[in-house]
């Protein structure tokens, strides 16, 4: 079956979710990926939305984190201070899914402003739950389509900490979570180097060349020794994703 880069990205993200994990899900690509996983290989994963809905099992993909679908299909609903303080900060979230407007080589994310803070060119929505997900989820998956203005040498505002200046600068701050383990793009996969924490191209999607990735990234990209090629979408993955999007 034919597929779009966006579909490939969502399916690759879904594949990262192992069954039985608790996953803090944002709207958009993360929600599509997490629900796709739940419908395929991870039926026992526990989806948590920041609206306080825990163990939601939506049939249709929600537009917002507060759609009635999420409230009606959840195991329980807790107030906001509880979802942030007891669940996320209390180390009960295995995986956090994040995106952003800008990302740098150490997977720090900006979703606040493009330009200066006091006089921005583009005012973005802001932090929301992202900074705490980034620092507290045991592991963070980032999904962002590659674009030169998004993958930049220096982000304009650190909204959510990745590995800060790399190496041990994140662990120095004593965050609960181990940080981003993967950046899933629409052309391939980047992962932090175990030592320097610099994002490194480790996998490409079928038919994509390394140069295509570099063309869409604003810094000189590190490339792994043996870049693997990711398995293309299987029919059942594509069908289920399209079903979810249509519902």
């Amino acid at each position, binding site marked *: 079956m034919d597929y779009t880069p966006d579909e490939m990205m969502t399916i690759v993200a879904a594949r990262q979710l192992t069954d039985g994990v608790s996953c803090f899900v944002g*709207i*958009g690509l993360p929600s599509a990926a997490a629900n796709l996983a739940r419908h395929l290989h991870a039926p026992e994963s526990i989806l948590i939305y*920041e*609206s*306080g*809905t825990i163990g939601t099992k939506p049939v249709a993909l*929600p*537009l*917002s*984190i*507060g*759609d*009635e679908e*999420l*409230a*009606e299909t959840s195991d*329980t*609903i807790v*107030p*906001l*201070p509880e979802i*942030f*303080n007891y669940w*996320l*900060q209390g180390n009960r979230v295995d995986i956090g899914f994040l995106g952003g407007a800008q990302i740098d080589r150490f997977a720090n994310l900006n979703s*606040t402003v493009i330009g200066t*803070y006091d006089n*921005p*060119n*583009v*005012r*973005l*929505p*802001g*932090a*929301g*739950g*992202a*900074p*705490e997900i980034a*620092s*507290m989820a045991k592991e963070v998956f980032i999904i962002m389509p590659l674009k030169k203005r998004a993958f930049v040498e220096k982000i304009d*505002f*650190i*909204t*959510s*900490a990745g590995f*800060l200046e790399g190496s041990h600068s*994140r662990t120095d*701050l*004593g*965050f*609960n979570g181990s940080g981003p383990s993967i950046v899933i793009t629409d052309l391939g996969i980047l992962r932090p180097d175990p030592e320097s924490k610099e994002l490194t191209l480790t996998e490409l999607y079928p038919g994509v060349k390394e140069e295509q990735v570099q063309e869409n990234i604003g810094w000189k990209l590190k490339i792994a020794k043996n870049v693997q090629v990711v398995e293309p979408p299987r029919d059942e993955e594509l069908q289920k994703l399209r079903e979810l999007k249509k519902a």
Partner: protein
Amino acid sequence: MAEIASLQEAVQTLIADHESVALEGFTHLIPQGAGHEIIRQGKKDLTLIRLTPDLIYDQLIGMGLVKKLIFSWGGNPGVGSLHRFRDAVEHQWPRELELEEHTHAGLANRYVAGASGLPFMVMKGYQGTDLLKNTKNAAVIDCPFTGEKVAAVAAINPDTTIIHAQQADRKGNVQLWGITGIQKEAAFSAKKVIVTVEEVVDKIEPRPNAVFLPSFTIDAVCKVPGGTYPSYALDYTKRDNQFYKKWDSISRDRNTFMNWMERHVLQTKNTEEFLRSLEGVVT
């Protein structure tokens, strides 16, 4: 004890120019009707507080009534930008908008401190981000037992909090359920509390996942059925996702926005008329 009052009266009596107001609701039970009443009465120089300023805050900002916004995520959920908010920040139209921004957890804990009668609350977070540089109301302190560094956020106590609930009884007790967000803390941290409700019932039957607010914690209860539109009240109304998408084009252009506000808010008297004015227009 809560007075059962008209929304018009409650807004007139309990909200003054230059005050801080939190119309809370986390994607559910958003008190849009009360926001429209504030616009109709032209309350001005307000400091608005809310984790997720959405369409109704976009409208209040676009109408020039807001001096300062304290928030943690200012977008149209699942759709994109709040154009009136962006226009105010990027181009100072129709006026400059002062911002104080936090994370969801940070602003939620500011309400928790306010509701708990404490000057501040502790949490993790803020460290390693640029947010810390841009607010006086978050700081890093040492744990007195372990020396570990934690974030502290200052209490927030709105002059008035407005929330929407499914039910009140005749004594002014209130019950809301479903996604209840930060509404209890927003109400408990405020000096004055207005609750708009879908329905006034004889007796409140406890529901799962519910928040119950006794009458003595509320100043005014106003019956405003449909008062969350285009948000929703679980088991009473449905979220109009189409309207959220449509707001993107209504709000993108200053004139289209002003005309829409004129026609649907300023020229209607109340939520009932507002909802009627949309019939055949939307979706």
